[in-house]
């Protein structure tokens, strides 16, 4: 028998059922770790640390979760906040525009011109953090623009623009 997310959340809230919470973590660990790894430029250790913090926050705040939103949207919102706090600690501006792509990527533009395909992970580095976050949420995790805007805590128009710009950059980088 398979429980829905709502069943697991109810079991956790009513009985503080650790197993129910564990099942929620098992279900969502992959998308959350993957999302944070994209934001962290592929740093899996950092992504795992932030994902762990995310789930600890979820454990503390699950009582405030309102079921009118999707659990995944709420969860990604917390993951985004964890990323922001981490970036602030490192004096970086998370989800802000980067002026230019990194130097090594500028060099690889020549490679693109000569029809060499960059691998997707490398091409993602062309994107600003905001564009990357929007692309991963909407195009990989299937969130609607509206849900992504909720999770990222930014206006709907900004998400749409970031998805559009991000896709354009990826298409150019990957020559697809």
């Amino acid at each position, binding site marked *: 028998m398979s429980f829905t997310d709502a069943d697991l959340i109810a079991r956790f809230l009513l009985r503080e059922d*650790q197993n129910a919470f564990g099942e929620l973590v098992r279900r969502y*660990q992959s998308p959350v770790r993957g999302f944070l790894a994209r934001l962290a430029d592929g740093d899996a250790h950092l992504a795992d640390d932030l994902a762990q913090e995310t789930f600890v926050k979820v454990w*503390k705040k699950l009582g405030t979760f309102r079921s009118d939103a999707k659990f*995944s949207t709420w969860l990604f919102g917390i993951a985004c906040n964890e990323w922001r706090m981490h970036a602030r600690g490192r004096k970086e501006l998370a989800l802000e525009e980067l002026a230019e792509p990194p130097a090594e990527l500028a060099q690889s533009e020549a490679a693109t011109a000569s029809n060499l395909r960059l691998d997707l992970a490398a091409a993602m580095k062309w994107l600003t953090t905001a564009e990357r976050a929007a692309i991963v949420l909407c*195009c990989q995790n299937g969130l*609607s623009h509206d849900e992504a805007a909720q999770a990222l805590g930014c206006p709907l128009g900004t998400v749409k623009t970031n998805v559009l710009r991000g896709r354009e950059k990826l298409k150019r980088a990957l020559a697809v």
Partner: protein
Amino acid sequence: MKNEMPHPPETNDPLDELLRGADEYLPDNGFTARVLTALPAKRRHAWRRLVVLTLAMLASAAVAAWQLPAIIGILHVAMPKHWSAIQWPWLATFAALLAALASLIWAMFAIVNEEE
């Protein structure tokens, strides 16, 4: 183990195919166990603390009320004459109760914030 994540819409765009292909499942590899180990102590401990704090506050208020007349008496002797008209015992009791109430509210806020 299946989550309720929506799936990205199926399109013929090669970029979407690439993005879908790159979205591979990350094996747990002990991640869930680490999260469960890192969870803070159970929340009911916080409420137990609130009960202990409340009882301690009530006990100290009782001791203060019991000893208050003696303390007030000593202070009354040391006070200037024109202050004697003020109802010090009532004022002191009111201040003590206010302080006790404030510390109880503070404790409750601290516990609620800790839970969040």
